[in-house]
């Protein structure tokens, strides 16, 4: 690597340094905009006892669900899980810990983590099981709970295009949690469909500035669809 060039040429290199027990923040919503090849690389590396922060946990044979096969995940921090039979089985057997977190709170935990804000107050979850044991403060007559932010040892992100400096743009709703995830990793790895030269992306249209990004790799993507819904054309 030279200067600001973040490009790596293998998935081994992309995930180098991932160890047992680490926390990995992953972008994606359902199967949309997930770093599918970086997840496959974690499966290949057989890293164990991972804490995964991601809105969902994929399905049985795609996305984060594949990390359940060899019980690589110790804990999931997610807003909605259980689209996979294996997940349900491991959860009921007590082999998997789940911290259910409201979706907006999860996004904000990542955003705050990346922005150096250790905690924030939100009305979301007050008076519900999510608020149990959390500090409550009243502002202007309304109750808020304190939520702590999240950072990860790694963040794994799926972008559309990046330049070699690690500036990233996302495509359509594949953006979702990816920009926040990108800010919150000690090592942020972005896989994209296309890598371009610096200057080819419009600076005003960059979603994730390269300062957050440590490694960029070009991948090829299956982009599986979870709920195929159509109208008659």
């Amino acid at each position, binding site marked *: 690597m030279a200067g600001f060039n973040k490009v790596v040429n293998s998935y081994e290199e992309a995930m180098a340094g991932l160890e047992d027990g680490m926390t990995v923040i992953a972008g994606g*919503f359902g*199967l*949309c905009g997930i770093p599918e090849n970086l997840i496959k690389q974690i499966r290949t590396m057989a890293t164990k006892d991972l804490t995964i922060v991601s809105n969902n946990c994929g399905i049985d044979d795609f996305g984060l669900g594949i990390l359940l096969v060899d019980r690589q995940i110790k804990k999931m921090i*997610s807003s909605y*899980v259980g689209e996979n039979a294996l997940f349900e089985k491991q959860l009921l057997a007590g082999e998997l810990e789940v911290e259910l977190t409201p*979706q907006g709170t999860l996004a904000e935990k990542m955003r705050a983590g990346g922005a150096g804000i250790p905690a924030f107050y939100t*009305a*979301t*979850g007050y008076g*519900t099981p999510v608020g149990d044991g959390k500090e409550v403060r009243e502002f202007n007559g309304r109750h808020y709970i304190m939520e702590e932010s999240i950072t990860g040892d790694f963040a794994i992100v799926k972008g559309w295009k990046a330049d070699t400096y690690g500036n990233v743009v996302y495509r359509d709703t594949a953006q979702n949690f990816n920009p926040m995830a990108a800010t919150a990793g000690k090592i942020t790895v972005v896989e994209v469909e296309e890598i371009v030269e610096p200057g080819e992306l419009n600076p005003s249209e960059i979603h994730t500035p390269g300062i957050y990004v440590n490694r960029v790799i070009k991948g090829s993507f299956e982009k599986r669809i979870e709920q195929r819904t159509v109208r008659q054309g």
Partner: protein
Amino acid sequence: MALSREQMAQRVARELQDGFYVNLGIGIPTLVANYVPAGIEVMLQSENGLLGMGPFPTEDEIDADMINAGKQTVTAATGASIFSSAESFAMIRGGHVDLTVLGAFEVDVNGNIASWMIPGKLIKGMGGAMDLVAGADNIIVTMTHASKHGESKLLTECSLPLTGRGCIKKVLTDLAYLEIEDGAFHLKERAPGVSVEEIIEKTEGKLIVPDNVPEMTFA
């Protein structure tokens, strides 16, 4: 006759106003999009990061990068914008969405709502529901008035773990439209052919019944 799912969606759609930004939950709320009254424009917000959700794509238009919060493939309407999850929930939590429509298991006289967790059953998660109920001022809950066994879901106090506290003011059931105020349900309208007595019988929480309860009409 209790309202059909389509009639419930039709009734909710009458609450839409020109220029509203609206978040529709999964199930009956989704159907509301089919009954936007003529002559008004609304923009649908999908919490995965889309403001201006269009119809489902044709077979040729399908794009894995373009989904809604139900993970269904969708299109973007003209004038749509797409953004991150944090931006999306800033809109929701910041109170910028004009109307939120979502389902529930139970609501109570204090505006509490339970919609995400039944102890003993597999808990999949709350998704964005807790953010939506905490962030929105104008929420309509759509639900059946009573369970299949006739047990009321409009209660003095929710029995299931809550999604939000003190945040619900409007409820449309298959039997009635009610508003919640001052610790009671206020009966505003009844489904065609449904008697006030039936609604009273199936409402466990305190219910205020005015002398005249108009019947909903459907074209």
